[in-house]
């Protein structure tokens, strides 16, 4: 399906973004990334081990992916800003998935700091994709300060609970001036399809693939689901009805 879309003027070939954490091993990760068809893949930035430095996993990804570094785990704007600057230096990209965590148990975003940090990163020339609440006001503020997209959570990170507030995501997609990328909570392929049906431009999946019994198969399933959901969105779903509507003709029924 030729259905290109772009973020910050950069055309992306796949509407499925994939994370690189938590796979059984590196080969499974590489196979899953390949099966997913994802062009954009996320990484985090961490201190090197001073005892045993053994290169970076980004070497393995080669040139087939565009890397989206994140600020996962940061709880202060200061740490998130420094992590973003370090990511830009390490990876030679000004794209950053901005995560600013306000609560360690739920990993909910700290909205107040998030908007401020996003504005600062935009001023510093970053292309900012913030992980955020599925709240139209927060998302509008993030777009207003110059974020290239918004990445609302479907449900809690790593929970696999799917999209907890589908009508909220649909409303957000209808009103957002920037692309909406569903982030977090996807548990299986139908969740990704639903995100696309609701109007998301793309979906980011990590745990649902990495921790599936067969990550390679789940990656392929997510790819198909995102394409199916996008096609359904373009095709336009029928309205829901309270009562049955026969699909076969009423006329010419035998015995009538």
């Amino acid at each position, binding site marked *: 399906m030729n259905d290109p879309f772009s973020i910050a003027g950069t055309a992306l070939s796949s509407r499925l973004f994939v994370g690189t954490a938590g796979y059984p091993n590196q080969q499974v990760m590489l196979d899953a990334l390949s099966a997913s068809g994802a062009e954009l893949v996320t990484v*985090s930035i961490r201190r090197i081990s001073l005892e045993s430095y053994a290169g970076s996993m980004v070497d393995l990804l080669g040139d087939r992916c565009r890397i989206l570094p994140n600020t996962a785990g940061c709880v202060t704007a200061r740490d998130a800003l420094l992590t973003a600057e370090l990511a830009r230096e390490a990876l030679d990209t000004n794209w950053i998935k901005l995560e600013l965590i306000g609560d360690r148990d739920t990993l909910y975003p700290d909205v107040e700091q998030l908007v401020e940090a996003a504005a600062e990163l935009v001023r510093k020339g970053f292309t900012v994709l913030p992980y955020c609440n599925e709240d139209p006001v927060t998302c509008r503020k993030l777009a207003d300060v110059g974020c290239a997209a918004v990445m609302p959570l479907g449900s809690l990170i790593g929970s696999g609970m799917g999209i907890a507030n589908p009508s909220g995501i649909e409303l957000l997609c209808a009103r957002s001036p920037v692309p909406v990328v569903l982030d977090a909570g996807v548990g299986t392929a139908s969740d990704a399809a639903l995100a696309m049906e609701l109007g998301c431009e793309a979906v980011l999946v990590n745990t649902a693939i990495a921790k599936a019994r067969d990550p390679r198969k789940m990656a392929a399933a997510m790819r198909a689901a995102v394409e199916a959901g996008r096609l359904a969105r373009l095709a336009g779903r029928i309205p829901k009805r309270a009562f049955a509507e026969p699909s076969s003709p009423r006329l010419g029924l035998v015995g009538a």
Partner: protein
Amino acid sequence: MMRLKVNGLDEETGASTLRELLLARGIDPGVRFLAVAVNGAVVRRAEWAQIPLSPGDEVEIVRPVQGG
């Protein structure tokens, strides 16, 4: 010798630049995807051999790892 904080840990070092600090740690300063900050500011790779370290400097040495 001077005392630095490297990736959150106190360290005595004879290194006088970031490049020397990396080499002393067995890290090739030419390896890809490495980034360094001193006292909260990124130091570009081209400056690793030039900017002197000072006692008490807080050095962060990072690289990309798996993430979501």
